[in-house]
């Protein structure tokens, strides 16, 4: 009979596929066991995002330095509550001492946080937060609104903004609902209205996380607005697509481009003048601080870290030192 072989093979193929998809790892760190072993579960948003890859580097560094065990988990590609909640449940079943959570939804993940706290697990939020922070030890985040304002400054400088002039810029977004998009766009818009009234945001469009669609959006804008002065690409995907579109049309330098997120490939394009500036977050530092805070709290019963910490975004441009460029680039292991 063929059937048993077939079943085995199907299961095998699916298993292989799921292994390939799943990038989760459990890292045992700390050569010699600490007096009492502390285990910290870290559940992030989506493995495929370099932002979280950089965060992982910071988390692993700090866990090794503190001599604690790090359980790193998260969905391979989907940034969504549906996939994250079961992962959090599975992690809590391992009874870690602490949970660092990047909630993919402020409401949907509240129950998971409450459950962890009820089980005596110390919880911290990084990057995004749940609605009720009263049981959360600390919430550490980058300042997306401030990052949007910094982007406005960088773009205004590039297009040589002068009082009384009129300028056209566009914003490439990923989706209307992504919270980071919203924060950055708010900050960008507010800063332009306050400081650069001559700049008009003439259009926005969505790339749906696909860099080729981001390039398409820019191509069409360049046709519609022949005098376009600048582009704010709100995340790494939009930055990649916009940079490629400008290169292909030979408009590098003619149209200002400020991107977001320090993807290695994009950081290299600051030097070649394709990006006027990149606004970078510091996910590694967010992770380091979260772990340091938790370890301090568990070992001493208190922490000096405030309940909410905002780590400013930084502007990377042609004047940024090579050391800083290297520091802020989202590098994976």
């Amino acid at each position: 009979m063929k059937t048993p072989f077939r079943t085995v093979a199907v299961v095998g193929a699916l298993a292989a596929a799921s292994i390939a998809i799943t990038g989760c790892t459990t890292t045992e760190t700390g050569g010699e066991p600490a007096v009492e072993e502390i285990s910290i579960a870290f559940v992030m948003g989506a493995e495929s995002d370099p932002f979280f890859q950089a965060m992982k580097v910071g988390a692993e560094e700090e866990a090794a330095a503190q001599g604690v065990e790090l359980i790193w988990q998260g969905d391979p590609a989907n940034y969504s509550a549906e996939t994250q909640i079961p992962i959090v449940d599975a992690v809590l079943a391992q009874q870690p001492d602490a949970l660092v959570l990047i909630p993919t939804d402020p409401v949907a993940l509240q129950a998971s946080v409450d459950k962890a706290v009820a089980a005596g697990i110390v919880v911290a939020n990084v990057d995004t937060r749940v609605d009720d922070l009263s049981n959360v030890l600390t919430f550490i985040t980058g300042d997306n609104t401030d990052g949007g304002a910094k982007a406005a400054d960088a773009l205004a400088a590039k297009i040589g903004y002068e009082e009384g002039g009129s300028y056209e810029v566009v914003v490439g977004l990923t989706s209307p609902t992504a919270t980071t998009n919203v924060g950055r766009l708010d900050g960008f818009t507010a800063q332009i209205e306050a400081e650069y009234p001559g700049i008009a945001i003439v259009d926005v469009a969505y790339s749906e996380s696909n860099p080729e669609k981001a390039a398409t959006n820019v191509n069409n804008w360049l046709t519609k607005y022949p005098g376009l002065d600048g582009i704010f690409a709100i995340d790494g995907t939009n930055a990649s697509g916009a940079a490629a579109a400008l290169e292909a049309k030979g408009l590098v330098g003619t149209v200002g481009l400020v991107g977001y997120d320090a993807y290695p490939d994009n950081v290299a394009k600051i030097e070649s003048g394709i990006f006027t500036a990149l606004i970078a977050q510091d996910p590694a530092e967010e992770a380091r601080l979260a772990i340091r805070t938790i370890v301090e709290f568990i070992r001493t019963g208190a922490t000096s870290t405030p309940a909410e910490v905002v780590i400013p975004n930084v502007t990377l441009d042609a004047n940024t030192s090579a050391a800083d460029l290297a520091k802020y680039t989202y590098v994976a292991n």
Partner: protein
Amino acid sequence: MTDSSQAISVTPSPAAEARKARAFDALTSQSSLLLGVLVILIIVFTILEPKFFSVATASNILTDWGSIVLIAVGQAFVIISGGIDLSVGAVIGLSGVVAAWTMANVLGLDQTVKGQDAWGGLLVGAAVSVGVGLLVGLINAFLINVLKIVPFIATLSTMGAALGLSVVISQGAPIGSANDFALISSFSPQWNPLSPALVVVIVVVTVLGLYLHKARVGLYTYAIGSNAFAARAAGINVARHLTWVYALSGALAGLAGIYVYIRLGAGSPSSGTGRELDAIAAVVIGGVSLMGGIGRLPGVVIGALILFTVQSGLIMIGVEPDWKKVVVAVLIAAAVAAQVLRKSDGRS
């Protein structure tokens, strides 16, 4: 006609004949119908935004069309043969990432290598990219032919595997390497919307169109999709032919992978996100039946063109992009309805 006659006549009555002639005309005029839709769309968008009617817009639309028409043509072969290939979008990402990784880490080329200096590297990248696509296509064929997994599930699992693998290799970030953006830019922006990469795409699509409609491989593709039992009874090696079809679809996705690489100057794991749905939409709008056996490549080519005309048009007139999905949904519904009407008309 009486029983004493030796000849069986299949000459129908004049009324039936006329009805059939009409049905036959409708079958052959799918492309002209779609061209009509395209012209109407262009007119509407031009009225709403005069800048839409320009060589630059044509170039934008064709540049988008280039990658999708490749996977749509592969998808057309697969769907006409009675199957489906959901892995093509993920393969664009995977093949682009593997090509970029090879160029960056094996050939040691970084993104500062530009222009004609990049051609050698791109040629290697193209071979790697098509090879990766071919491999995924062969895996699909293996799952379908040998393990007898239905195409939807088989290609869904390779889609997941390809996506996961591309994330693992790239660690989520685009991998930049050598590139010549001139390959994707218009020859002459003044009057010619074509680019060298598009010329390659058009040649490939034309050759495959000839093979689908004029050659034995095409005939077998239709025969299997129309009635696999009859195809087998006629002595066609169905499994071998399907292997060929899925390998073609994979290889075309690989070719689209290097096309997108050239467009972006980087291999990105998310560069094919959702593209399998664009391809299926183009195929269905183009008049291919998801049941297999029906459809012609010119329709698919124009279907893909309509898709990106709508996309460009909506961006140009500044409409919320979500409307694109609504418009595409309407087009798909209209195409399927037209198919059903044609079918009921063609049967007496």
